[in-house]
């Protein structure tokens, strides 16, 4: 088996995948679910329920609004007690539906059986419609509505479906466990996705640090013609779609472009499973696998939790509590995840992990001056000059930052990871990207 990787930059953070051997445990629904209407990229959904309404698991409670948007389904059954703005992961107040759980009563249309079946008798359009109506979004972290990826414009054609089983972030093992425990379902999901995109060839990229998953899926792939499992050399950020395409197919997405520009559709392993569940079992995206990690935890592991479960509740359900020396709680992976401000923050469709770090683990020294060692340039997987971008963004020279291709930054954090001066490069670059985006938007309007 060939071992490919992307050629430019990249870092090797310690992997710390301690939870890789912990089977996925399904947690009970929480006593109260906080369901945000903007769990996906794009326009927030329109809440369809009112205070006092009874909902069941899988009831549509938010309808997608606009082209890039996704439906939201109730993750628990019970009564809607509040619809109010709450602070979400971005730190700003967004509309959330708060549901008090009563029992666990699923919608009749949902097939709770999870045994793999090999029959798919849907047309591509029907599959895309089902994915759309059941609110499936990318489970890798960005939560891009999945159905849009398959709605290619007339002039574009995809020839390869890429399934992302890289999971290059430290600590996270949710996709790894999913591959080990639901291989048939995932392979089936890939078949569904191939059909939806009218693609005959699928490539599954898995990093070499998951040999058991590679072997298992390769074994299964023998029965699925047109699906190939590829082992990749371990390097961060291989799970970023641009890097993954480069590693697997040696194709490069043009600046500002999408995978479809090079004939690819990229989906996560978790998404493959969610699509399988949606299309075959008509099960909306109401739960997901989340890795709970942290050196101080008693029961770290991989848990299947309902969307809307708060971190506090998830800890309780897992029979654990926050370690007393916790300094920082991160939602997502340690490289690209976001720190949360209180434990009431709910798990959303894009949450792949929850990480508790103590003071030693998340200590970042004072930020010193740039010594121009060039390490950030060496590790940048996009071939940018992070030291320059950081300075331009800090000094608010957005015009020059745009010329230096700040918008190509994928915010992987490799530059800040290796910076000997401890400069928070990504924060400044993110700020600059937001401003440049505003400027570009204004220019387009003109």
């Amino acid at each position, binding site marked *: 088996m060939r071992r490919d990787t992307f050629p430019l930059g990249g870092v090797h953070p310690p992997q710390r995948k301690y939870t890789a051997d912990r089977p996925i445990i399904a947690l009970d629904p929480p006593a109260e679910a906080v369901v945000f209407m903007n769990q996906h990229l794009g326009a927030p959904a329109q809440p369809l329920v009112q205070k006092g309404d009874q909902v069941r698991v899988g009831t549509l409670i938010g309808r997608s609004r606009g082209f890039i948007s996704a439906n939201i389904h109730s993750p628990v059954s019970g009564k809607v007690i509040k619809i109010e703005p709450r602070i979400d992961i971005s730190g700003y107040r967004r509309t959330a539906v708060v549901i008090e759980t009563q029992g666990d009563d699923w919608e009749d249309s949902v097939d709770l059986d999870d045994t793999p079946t090999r029959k798919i008798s849907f047309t591509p359009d029907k599959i895309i419609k089902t994915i759309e109506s059941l609110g499936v979004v990318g489970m890798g972290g960005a939560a891009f509505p999945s159905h849009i990826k398959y709605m290619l414009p007339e002039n574009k054609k995809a020839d390869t479906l890429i399934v992302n089983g890289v999971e290059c972030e430290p600590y996270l093992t949710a996709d790894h466990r999913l591959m080990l425990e639901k291989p048939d379902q995932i392979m089936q999901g890939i078949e569904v996705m191939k059909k939806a995109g009218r693609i005959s060839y699928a490539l599954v990229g898995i990093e070499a640090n998951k040999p058991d998953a590679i072997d298992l899926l390769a074994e299964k792939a023998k029965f699925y013609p047109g699906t190939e499992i590829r082992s990749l050399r371990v390097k961060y950020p291989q799970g970023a779609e641009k890097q993954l395409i480069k590693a697997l197919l040696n194709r490069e997405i043009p600046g500002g472009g999408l995978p479809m520009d090079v004939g690819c559709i990229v989906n996560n392993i978790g998404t493959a499973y969610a699509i399988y569940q949606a299309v075959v079992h008509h099960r909306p995206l109401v739960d997901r696998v989340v890795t709970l990690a942290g050196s101080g935890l008693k029961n770290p592991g991989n848990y299947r939790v309902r969307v809307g479960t708060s971190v506090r509740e998830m800890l309780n359900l897992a029979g654990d509590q926050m370690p007393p020396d916790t300094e*920082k709680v991160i939602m997502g992976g340690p490289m690209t995840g976001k720190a949360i*401000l209180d434990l009431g923050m709910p798990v959303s469709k894009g949450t792949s992990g929850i990480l508790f770090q103590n003071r030693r683990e998340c200590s*970042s020294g004072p930020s010193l001056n740039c010594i121009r060692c060039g390490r950030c340039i060496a590790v940048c997987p996009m071939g940018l000059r992070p030291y320059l971008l950081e300075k331009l963004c800090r000094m608010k020279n957005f015009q020059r930052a745009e010329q230096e291709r700040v918008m190509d930054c994928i915010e992987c954090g490799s530059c800040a990871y290796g910076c000997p001066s401890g400069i928070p490069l990504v924060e400044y670059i993110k700020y600059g990207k937001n401003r440049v985006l505003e400027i570009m938007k204004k220019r387009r309007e003109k």
Partner: protein
Amino acid sequence: MNPVVLISVLALGITAAVAGIALYVISRTFHVVEDARVDEIENLLPGINCGACGYPGCRGCAEAIITAADDGDITGFFCPPGGNEVMGKIARKLGYQAQRQMPTTAVLLCNGGMDKAPVKYRYRGPEKCFISHELFLGPAGCAYGCLGYGDCVQACDFDAIKIDPKTGLPVILEDHCVSCGACVKACPRNLIVILPRGGQNQRVWVACQNREKGAIAIKNCKAACIACNKCVKICDQIAQAVSIQNNVAVIDQERCTRCGTCVGECPTGAILANFSLFEELGEPALKDGGKQ
């Protein structure tokens, strides 16, 4: 004599002579006549190149004034740091009537210091307001209040802003402030505005920009404007200067009589005055915060 010395002296001497003549001829043929008045005006201006007038530095302003003067109208020019005095001198020099404007100063529109708006979580990112504003509501939970990392302090060229270590809020020293507006541009939450200094350097302003409903605002900050309308009601009998806009009280500085009644009336202490109200009201009307 060593021939090397002789040759070098001669060669360099001739080069110098040729270059000198060339430079003289060039400077004569391409001579630019500068308006002598520009220098004079520039000397009258404060020379701090703050950019408050809207021109790149004092010389830029001087050139623009001369151009405008030749066109016959210098209204519209004002040097906030120099004030009426400087503008009067310039107008006299150019033979115009001086245009008077109210002196101004920068004012902070937030009173939610650490004592009134306790910090709820520790922010570990870069300590810049503009970055913090991008990411979160701010450690106190108020999406409109001062973040306190001092972008304005860094922007100020005149040492007019200091962070008060007790409250974590910037304090604007009016004596130093030239109202150049650098801090206004630096604040990502638009919490600093340029206000007229007011008669006898007295003014009253609402130190809150929280546009949330009162109940939410007061939860995060004890000094938030809760739009209770008390100030509006009391002022309607005096000057009709206060109104509620977007859940925040706004004082019309032109109508305000600087009586300070609303300051005592405000239940949360969101209205501030920069003068003592003790004599006027006969009793200590200010619970806390009345002075900046």
